[in-house]
């Protein structure tokens, strides 16, 4: 038991400690300062900019940034959509996997473009190696898009008045070359040496101890899994994701993969401090996020270690904790920790079955995605948090009797309007999606084209647990998380299309909103701090932000949680 906890705590602490120098490095990359790796990357980037005809020094305003960001994403979506649609007859398909259905291709393309990686298929049978490569490409660029967006907001927060906020392509390419690639390479090497395959050959045939012959899927997995975590994507190469023995062979790879998904979201917050020379602000933000994270992770780990009360009532000892749906090589503590890390951080890779987690853990996983701002995804975590800061600044500004300011810029009606809209969006997407699914399930509607059968057939479990399955799927989509509660029949037009739409809205609106606010604020007059200014780098302001997050994010989901995991929790108790 104690070694298990020791493992969890040390991985967490090592990640934080390493995030500080990496944050410093990221800040340097976005500031354009000299780094050790310039001789390697300068020529590469020069080459990329040259062949693509991009002038990387041309400064853009926030609208131009958005235009660039949205158009590249659109291009990738179509590229990916068509590859998936025709993968059966394209090259690099040694296992002869079939074409995707249009609705699944739609969902999958969106899902990888938006850094979510909700997978309504299994990689082994659902994708050709070409498709895997295209998806891997998307895992890089979607992460870089999020980071570039965060970099634009960093730039906008500088103490000056301007509409020139750097060049999108410059931030984007540098995020890929200087941050994502090197970190992924480290992780890929670690995985490679631990036994993860890296090959373009077809399925292997092995003879088991019993003498049966078994087909084992393989492929270029090591690099895929590296960027899946570094870029907080979470899409597994194999269907079972990081619970699969080739995708996550040992406790060591498990630790590496955990570190890999934590590192950039952690480092981005420190990067903010280094970038703006406001270290204290970044510590406060990191502190708020960490407290939120711990409040979610501690009950989960304890619940999982304690085992299932229903089994206990049967008089069976559970010395290893709740092991249903978990891998023996990981155990309940690190699996519980992973389940919160992956939901808090919008990775969505799983190393245990969330459907089998204890109800309390399920509630925590859901809450982690409902909040979606404690660390959060690659770059976008900061954008979500930024919205809550704006709202907190506004309310606390009023509370101290002064028109609210954030880093020297006045927060006025327009910014509040955008922030409020983005804050509403998340509950709107999750609750209305779940409401739609519940409506059909409650009436057991015959779904026709949308689903082969009646609506309740898509549920693996009836009652509260079934409700949690539907709630989880939409929450995971809106948060661009991509993990599945599973147990839900989700590869059908109903789920592919509805979650696809939620994914799109849940990705791009929360990028557009903060960018717009940051752009508007950057253009406002800079007001130097005075004795009457409410400082935002203080613990008390941290408390305020936390309260705003708790009220907006948690409260609006209270009734839904009560009907899902909480009802289960109290029933099981």
């Amino acid at each position, binding site marked *: 038991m104690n070694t298990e906890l020791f493992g969890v705590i040390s991985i967490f602490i090592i990640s934080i400690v390493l995030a500080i120098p990496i944050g410093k490095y990221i800040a340097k990359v976005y500031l354009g300062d000299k780094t050790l790796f310039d001789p390697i990357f300068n020529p590469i980037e020069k080459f990329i900019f040259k062949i693509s005809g991009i002038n990387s020094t041309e400064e853009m305003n926030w609208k131009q940034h958005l235009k660039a960001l949205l158009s590249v994403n659109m291009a990738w979506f179509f590229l990916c959509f068509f590859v998936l649609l025709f993968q059966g007859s394209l090259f690099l398909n040694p296992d002869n996997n079939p074409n995707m259905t249009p609705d699944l291709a739609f969902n999958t393309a969106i899902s990888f473009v938006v850094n979510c990686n909700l997978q309504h298929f299994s990689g082994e049978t659902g994708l050709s190696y070409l498709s895997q490569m295209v998806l891997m490409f998307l895992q890089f660029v979607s992460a870089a898009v999020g980071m570039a967006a965060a970099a634009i907001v960093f730039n906008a927060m500088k103490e000056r008045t301007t509409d020139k906020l750097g060049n999108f392509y410059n931030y984007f390419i540098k995020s890929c070359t200087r941050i994502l690639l090197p970190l992924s390479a480290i992780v890929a090497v670690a995985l490679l040496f631990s036994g993860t395959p890296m090959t373009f050959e077809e399925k292997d045939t092995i003879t088991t101890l019993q003498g049966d012959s078994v087909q084992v899927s393989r492929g270029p997995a090591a690099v895929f899994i590296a960027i899946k975590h570094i870029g907080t994507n979470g899409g597994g190469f194999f269907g079972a994701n990081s619970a699969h023995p080739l995708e996550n062979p040992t406790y060591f790879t498990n630790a590496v993969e955990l570190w890999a998904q934590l590192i950039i979201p952690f480092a981005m917050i420190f990067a903010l401090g280094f970038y703006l020379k406001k270290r204290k602000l970044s510590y406060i933000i990191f502190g708020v996020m960490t407290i939120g994270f711990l409040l979610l992770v501690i009950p989960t780990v304890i619940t999982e270690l304690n085992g299932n009360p229903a089994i206990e009532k049967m008089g069976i000892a559970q010395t290893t904790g709740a092991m249903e749906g978990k891998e023996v090589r990981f155990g309940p503590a690190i699996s519980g920790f992973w389940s919160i890390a992956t939901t808090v951080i919008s990775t969505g890779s799983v190393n245990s079955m969330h459907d089998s987690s204890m109800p309390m853990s399920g509630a925590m996983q859901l809450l982690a995605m409902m909040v979606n701002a404690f660390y959060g995804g690659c770059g976008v975590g900061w954008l979500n948090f930024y919205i809550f800061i704006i709202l907190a600044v506004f309310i606390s500004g009023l509370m101290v*009797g*002064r028109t609210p300011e954030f880093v020297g810029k006045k927060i006025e009606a327009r910014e509040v309007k955008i922030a409020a809209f983005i804050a*509403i969006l998340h*509950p709107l997407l999750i*609750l209305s999606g779940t409401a739609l699914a519940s409506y059909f399930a409650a009436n057991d509607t015959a779904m026709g084209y949308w689903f082969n059968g009646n609506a309740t057939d898509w549920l693996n479990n009836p009652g509260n647990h079934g409700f949690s399955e539907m709630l989880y799927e939409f929450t995971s989509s809106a948060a661009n998380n991509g993990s599945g509660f599973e147990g839900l029949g989700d590869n059908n037009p109903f789920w592919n299309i509805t979650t696809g739409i939620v994914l799109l809205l849940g990705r791009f609106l929360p990028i557009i909103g903060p960018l717009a606010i940051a752009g508007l604020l950057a253009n406002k007059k800079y007001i130097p701090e*005075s004795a009457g*200014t409410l400082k935002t780098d203080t613990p008390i302001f941290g408390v305020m932000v936390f309260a705003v997050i708790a009220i907006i994010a948690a409260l609006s989901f209270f009734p839904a949680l*009560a*009907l899902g995991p909480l009802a289960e929790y*109290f029933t099981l108790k």
Partner: protein
Amino acid sequence: MTNNKSNSLFESKQVKDALVQSFVKLNPKVMFKNPVMFTVEIGTAIMFAVCIAILFGAQEQGSFVYNFIVFLILLATLLFANFAEAIAEARGKAQADSLRKTREETPARQLLPNGDIKNISSSALKKGDVFVCEAGDLIATDGEIIEGLATIDESAITGESAPVIREAGGDKSSVTGGTKVLSDKIKVIVTNEPGESFLDKMIALVEGASRQKTPNEIALTILLAAFTLIFVIVCVTLKPFADYANAPITIAAFISLFVCLIPTTIGGLLSAIGIAGMDRALRANVITKSGKAVETAGDIDVLLLDKTGTITIGNRKATSLYATKGISQEDFIQSAVLSSLADDTPEGKSIVELAGLEVAQKLSIEGATLIKFTAETRTSGVVLKDGTNIRKGAQDAAKNIALQAGNVFPEDTAQKVIEISSNGGTPLVVIKNDQIQGVIELQDIIKTGMKERFERLRKMGVKTVMVTGDNPLTAKFIAEKAGVDDFIAEAKPEDKMNYIKNEQQNGKLVAMMGDGTNDAPALAQADVGVAMNSGTQAAKEAGNMVDLDNDPTKLIEIIEIGKQLLMTRGTLTTFSIANDVAKYFAIVPALFIAAIPALQGLNIMNLHSPESAILSAVIFNAIIIPILIPLALRGVDYKPIGAEAILKRNLLIYGLGGLIVPFIGIKLIDLVVAIFI
């Protein structure tokens, strides 16, 4: 100051008026302006329909009595919110009325262009008309003196009993309707059309006819609308969730949950808070032209204050007389007194006072020619019968006179001049027949308590700037002694303007107070410009507030009123939203317990039954509004303890308090409700 004010929060007549208004304001067209309360009104209408449906035999919605009670409580919630707004309006109106009463229908004597005098009623006076007032007359309406000088009793508006002098030309030419002429005769030109005076505008603001939402109020309304929308989503989606869980929810429960969750507390009190802010300004005898001005006052970073009359007691006094080497002290004093005998400025009088009456009595200036002070010569004095020319004035002017006549400016006098200046005094050099005689030291006397006030402002984050015509040395000394942060010395009107523009360029908000016509551009440029009521019409037009008391330190009060206004909104918003936690824990288990008995575990308040839980939550939600009305009207106390400390304090009281209070309140109400169910 307080003779025309009512200090009790509620007066029976106001309460009566407000009660009537509470019902009048139920009109959906009026309600629509307040999105939060408008949704409550819709909910109330739906509940009314449900009650009717039950009377006609609808089965699934529970008993008529229960539904009707929910309807009544919702209606009460609306009425409470309307009452809050109405009582704030009534108080503001009563305040304005008491000011207005004095000026209604006073007889006026209009001076016709042909010189005839016509007796008419004040309300018939139009802008541009001229009327005449003599001792004992009430001034008919606001205007500017075009001829004459009078002492006027302004106690009707300021509460100050000491009479003031108003005269044509200069910066003290404005008179206010309803004030009384005590002596002399003046001709006054009317400056406003009837019904358009500042006071009339203010009354219109308070009454809501022309009340526009302030920028912060708009932003807050958006935020509250967003919260309302979130809970619309929560409640609407709950229907299919509950259907799926086989937990049917009655319409009454839905609407109760919704009304409890949306921020009705702040939504109901929001406009009352804004009106009360203007009302508080009016109580401080300040007329504001817009609610925005009061709000902006709370944000002020820089405060420009005139030295004279604000920081120092209006007049300087002679404190020492220093003869130049080679001139006897006696001769010097004689010259000084002679130059001042005819000088009736306070400085001149103080020189005679200092020299002593016996010296003055010996001297005579009969037959002498007086030389008045002008801006060009910057000296004044007399030419005696025998041709002796005695002048006194600023040292550079005196020096010029001496040097031009071929005389020297003695070294010891130059020394003395610097010494006096650096001690905060003003040197006046005396010249007799173009020869320097000596220096008179004039000293400023700083008002008591100013240092503490500036300290308080500094803690609020407001930088104080003293504006003075003194030379930089004197200015620096007084600035240090009074504790202001910065000063503008030898200030010309455009210096003020430039200083304001410069600060604004750096993103600061600037407030200033002024009275003269030459202040008008700066008053207009400043973010908050407070004109004194005694000031010129131009100054009053340019500023966005008028101070009836003519008290230059009033700005400090105005800033506090502005801050209070914002704080009251912020804290009540926090309180309102924090309340939701307890309301959730009351209503959510009540909704589902019948279908999912295990959810009893969420009923942490251990409320009696689902019905009692819902009723208790709605009742708490309704009565918290009237309970908080006094706070909304008085405003949250502002203390200059630094932004962070205020946040800590308010978060503790209104955030944590808002979290805990409803748990207790709902539980207590439930204990009572349980007796009846």
